[in-house]
């Protein structure tokens, strides 16, 4: 909690472990109406203070689940609950900017901006107020994801994949969300860095009480997490 202290109106659930942060309730999803269903009747509770891995073979609907959990889209059937509230009816832009930090597989950083600008952009977008200058918070985050401080004013273009990965994590943490959602966070990294990143995630969950959800097909990552949500391959029809 010493990285960014947010003064939000959110209920103070962050410190409590075992509080349901996100719940899936009979969630089904198909991209087009009446089309092929990617997810069928999924139920799961994502609690704070845990690292949860979502695994499954290709085509099992991992990315779809990610977009449902991050509020980029809504299920065709069932509900996604955030702190007991239906995400489909909530302001999902506010949810994305406030309550969840998403680390996309392709990072989705703005290449023309510097590291610091990318991080501060997310902080600005959250609309939260911070008790320290944003630049300072960004510097601390960069240190936390183990990047050199001089990276702050480097453009994203000039960074390697692993470095971009860390910047993406730093950005996801910058506005102190309750939930961290990572899509294949270790896919581009060597084993040592992979462990490094996992240490950061575990630290976030266990010491800061965040709900860390990792979408991965790496058995090592799954083994290091507290829970594994196994998505079975679709066997429709």
């Amino acid at each position, binding site marked *: 909690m010493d990285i960014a202290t947010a003064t939000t109106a959110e209920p103070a659930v962050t410190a409590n472990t075992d509080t349901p942060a996100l719940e899936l309730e009979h969630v089904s999803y198909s991209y087009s109406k009446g089309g092929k269903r990617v997810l069928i009747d999924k139920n799961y509770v994502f609690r704070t203070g845990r690292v949860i891995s979502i695994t499954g073979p290709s085509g099992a609907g991992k990315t779809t689940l990610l977009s449902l959990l991050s509020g980029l889209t809504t299920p065709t059937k069932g509900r996604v609950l955030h702190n007991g509230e239906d995400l489909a009816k909530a302001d999902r832009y506010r949810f994305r900017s406030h309550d969840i930090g998403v680390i996309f597989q392709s990072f989705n950083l703005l290449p023309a901006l510097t590291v610091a*600008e990318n991080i501060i952009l997310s902080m600005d977008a959250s609309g939260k107020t911070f008790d320290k200058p944003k630049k300072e918070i960004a510097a601390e985050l960069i240190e936390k994801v183990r990047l050199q401080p001089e990276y702050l004013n480097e453009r994203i273009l000039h960074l390697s994949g692993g470095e971009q990965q860390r910047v993406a994590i730093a950005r996801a943490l910058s506005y102190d969300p309750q939930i961290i959602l990572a899509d294949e966070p270790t896919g581009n990294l060597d084993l040592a860095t992979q462990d490094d990143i996992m240490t950061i995630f575990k630290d976030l969950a266990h010491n800061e009480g965040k709900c860390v959800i990792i979408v991965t097909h790496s058995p090592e990552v799954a083994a290091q997490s507290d829970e594994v949500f196994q998505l079975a391959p679709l066997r429709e029809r």
Partner: protein
Amino acid sequence: MFVLNNAWKTVIRNKGRNILIVLIVAIIAAAATIGLAIRNAASTARETGLANTSVTATISVDRSKLMEQARESQSSSSSDSSDSSSSGDSTPDFDSMRSALEGSSLTLADYQKYEKASSVSVSSYYSESTGVSGTDSFQPVETSTANAANSSSSDSSSDSSNSGDGQQGPGGDGKGQGGGPGNMMTSGDFTLTGFSSDTAIANASNGSFTMSSGEVFGYDESDNGKVIISKTLADFNNLSVGDTITVTNPSDTSLTYTLTICGIYENSTSSNTNAMGPMGGTSQDADNAIYTSVSTLKSLGLDSDTTANDDNDDTTTQLNYTYVLANADDYETFAADVKAAGLDDTYTVQSADVEQYESSLVPLDNLAKFALTLLIVVLVVGAVVLVVLNLFNIRERKYEVGVLTAIGVKKAKVAAQFVIELLIVTMCGIALGVAGGAVASVPVSNQLLASQVSAQESEASSQQQQFGRAADMGGGPGGEQQSSSSSSDSSSSSSSSDSSSANSSSDSAGSTKSNNTQQGGPGGMRQAVNYVSEINATVNLAVVGQLILIGLGLTLISALVGIVFVMRYEPLQILADRS
């Protein structure tokens, strides 16, 4: 705040492209500024030019219709031999034309009827002029040697000068068209002009004058018989205030009129004298103008009503009736009212002031039209360019839209950011363009106006030549410039030949008839119009305001592309997008 900040940062970040857009917008804005400034200045000039000045108007016959009639009657009727003897070039049938024109002049009562028909306040003045001949004791001032030689014997002198008038008579219109007080073609040695009021005298054809001794006559009957004469004429005949002079009827020398000199005046402007000098007879010389009141003319039986009604065609008096209106708007109302009061189609209400002003505005109008075209073209091209640029811009930034929406920035905010970015850039461009346009608009618009004026002038001169040709065919009004040199030759030659032949009566009859009908000569066409050649196309706040509105409009139109694009963007797409 987030939107503004982000927009500003993005603008700063993309310097290259934005400078390009700023330049394009600046050029568009500069052109639009000049266009707007010209239109503004033109409309201001039009509105204020005649707003507060009084306008004089006259009623005159429709020139073109009469010319047409004259030409038709010329082809059908046989030519008059007496005319052809004195004129070398084509011999139009003056008499037939004159008879066609005769009776077209309005009477004093008609004029006054129309004045009463007006719904706006209108004042009027009029003058009547006729020719009288001198006697042995009272001779006209003469400048031309030909005329001087002729005037030694009184009879032939008056006749010959009359005939001279007859040939060139209709061309002597130096001043306003539409029967303005400039076109008195009167046979005789002197022009005896009766005025209705001081205003009428002030607008006398020979220009303004000052009294050197005595005073101006009154206008009621008690002052009948009193005249004022020019100082030159007084000196020439060794006359002073209080003396009496005797003049005769030009066609009947036994008919004499005795007049008392109550004042001697000095012309302060004499340009008309020079212009007419070689063309007319001595009566055309401003120095030979005798001024009196209309009441005097009436008492002598020389007023227009009497001369028009009597059977003797030899003496005619020309009536110049002028209405004075408060401003140009009143003039328009007056013209409509007069038409409603039953003025025939062959008559038109004309105002030399308004028409001269209108024609002086022709280049300005053309310029305003040009400015409008420029404005439209520039704005359309500008809008298209901006839309295209913005389209490419937005497509390029699709990924950015995705990232922003994915991290939870609302689409409306993203769209607003894009619009604000564009606004910042276009406003910079407009500011630069307005500054540039403001600096350039005055010299550029005056340059453009100068070219319009010269184009108009060359057009006018070709029109003048064309009209001169038409005038030859019609036999009536020759152009002032063209006819002056040749007519002076023919004047002396014809007067010498005429003095031997005794055909003076028919000639002078013809010429006096033409005097009567010749009011409203086409002088206005030939008069060099003093075009408005300077406009004050400075950029004022109104222009800046209009430009900012235009800029906002253009920006919104081009931003619409971006807004539509952003609004249709699905945040989910970001999972598939990777730059």
